[in-house]
């Protein structure tokens, strides 16, 4: 059985004005199903670019990216949209919920693009909200929810398609310590249920929730090591 993520010599070049910027320089990486990986690095180290490529939002300039054994490098926009819809869940730093739209409909959003019947969509969205502990808040608008609650709606949205991969881009960046802890505990729990999580952060204590820590510098892998926390050990 192949690994969930196999990257080989990923290279990403941007053109910023007149200058070519190499965000990734031949990065190779393998992540197995069920891992909880933290990607760390200073700003400009290429961690966002890596996350975009892993999330099929972007394509590498050179190199190969196989997701679940499929080479997604050559896929066109709409095929990538399908891959994102079926296999990937996103959690963003700024939650990115659709404003003035209920929690239920926000959670429903990925199913919206699957041509599923409305009642089925609603049922699944309600279940997903229940799973993140937001039962009874289905009709709340994002502005009526706290930051932590908004992020939980975003997690429900990411989970609703039962993805194999959850990508979290600084998910606690806009949250207070207490909410951060809640969200990270939730991600940890989801990981234990089998979802592969890749977390981008620059906070060491957040990265500590992961089992494996990857450090990037100038678009290359600087270090790749297991964190002190071993799977199954919960530290409060």
């Amino acid at each position, binding site marked *: 059985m192949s690994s969930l993520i196999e990257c080989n010599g990923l290279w990403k070049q941007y053109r910023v004005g007149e200058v070519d910027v190499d965000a990734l320089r031949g990065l190779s990486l393998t992540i197995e199903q069920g891992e909880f990986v933290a990607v760390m690095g200073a700003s400009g180290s290429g961690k966002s670019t890596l996350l975009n490529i892993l999330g099929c939002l972007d394509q590498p300039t050179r190199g190969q990216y196989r997701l679940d054994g499929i080479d997604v490098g050559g896929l066109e*926009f*709409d095929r990538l*949209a399908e891959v*994102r819809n*079926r296999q990937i869940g996103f959690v963003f730093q700024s939650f990115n919920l659709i404003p003035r739209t209920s929690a239920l409909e926000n959670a429903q959003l990925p199913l919206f693009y699957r041509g599923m019947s409305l009642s089925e969509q609603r049922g699944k969205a309600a279940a997903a909200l229940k799973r993140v502990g937001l039962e009874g808040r289905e009709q709340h608008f994002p502005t009526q929810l706290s930051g932590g609650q908004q992020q939980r709606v975003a997690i429900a949205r990411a989970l609703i398609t039962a993805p194999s991969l959850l990508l979290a881009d600084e998910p606690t960046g806009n949250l207070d310590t207490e909410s951060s802890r809640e969200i990270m505990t939730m991600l940890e729990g989801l990981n234990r249920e089998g979802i592969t999580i890749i977390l981008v952060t620059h906070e060491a204590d957040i990265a500590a929730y992961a089992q494996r820590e990857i450090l990037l510098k100038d678009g290359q892998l600087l270090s790749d090591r297991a964190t002190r926390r071993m799977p199954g050990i919960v530290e409060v």
Partner: protein
Amino acid sequence: MSAFVWMTVLTALRILGRNRLRAGLTMLGIVIGVGAVIAMVGIGEGAKRAVQAQIATMGTNVIIIWPGATTVSGVRSSQGGAVTLTVADALDLRKKIPLLAETGWAKRDAMQIVNGNKNWNGPINGISPSYLTIRDWSFSSGGPFTQADLDSAARVALIGQTIVDNLFEDGEEPVGAVIRIKNVPFRVIGVLAPKGQSAQGSDQDDVIFIPFTTAERKVFGTAFLGSIGAMFASTDRAEDLPEAVDRIREVLRARHRLQGEQNDDFTVKTQVDIGRVQEGTSQTLTVMLFSIASVSLLVGGIGIMNILLVSVTERTREIGVRMAVGAKRGHVLMQFLIEAMTLSLLGGVIGIVLGVIGAKLTTVVAGWPTVISIDVIIVAFVFSLAVGLFFGLYPANKASRLNPIEALRYE
């Protein structure tokens, strides 16, 4: 797909509901355009029907033949100035053209009419009895004169409602009364049922009919007996009119001994020809309406495009999120197209409602007849949809071409 469309329509309505003022202002162009067109087409159609009804009062399948102009030493008189048509012509036409159901003739002159201490100057028409049949005159009291009255040049008169109103007191019975036309006493034997205005706007009820023979011998003092002012004919079927016109020209040219190159010394027109003049007017009106409609729909469409471009910019992050969770380019395109069409359609529907109200109000306030046809409403509906589609295309395409990474990062 249907769940997607349904959700998108709901989303679009919610977005519009959130920003009612903006949505209202955006739709205004479409509302005014569609409303104006609906109202004006309603008024125009009403006017057209009124004219058609007026033309119908002329009779059914009527052909009118006027004498031509004379040329005396190069000086041309007005149409009808010549005495080229005669009673004999009319009788011969009837005999030679079986297509003609009736032929009749008339001659008119304005004369002073007196009843007791009242007098009125009205058009006196000396007519053949068949004229009444051709022109569809009916009676509100009394009845027509007969061939015997014509043969004996009887002094009997049929009078229109306007004459009754001007010569008789309220409640005075006109039938049986004796009126004087140019000092000749006439017994009124019939009052004509009112017809109202003619297509040219003259009062058709301001009229007196007397037998043709009586008119030429006792009232008008005609120099050439048998010369007539206008000849009338009718056919049983409308589709026979063109052929009847051709045959009439043939027979009259032969009777008047006109050679190959000589012009007709008469003019033949049918009811259809007269109606066509009115149609030409309404066609000009229609062209103008369509220009107004296109301009306002264009302006309305640009308004929608403008607000949609703003919306795409405002909702860049939302578009990014939608793409991240699996929206294809087509989905984003559809979403904004549906929003554009929802806007324009809503504007169209409001415009239709306002237009219908406007037209009805015109009827109530100004008394103009208006006709709102379902066709116009369907066309307006389809057009507003098309405007939304057309002007939504550019912003929607722009939205669907966004790069998801940049969209997600957009502040």
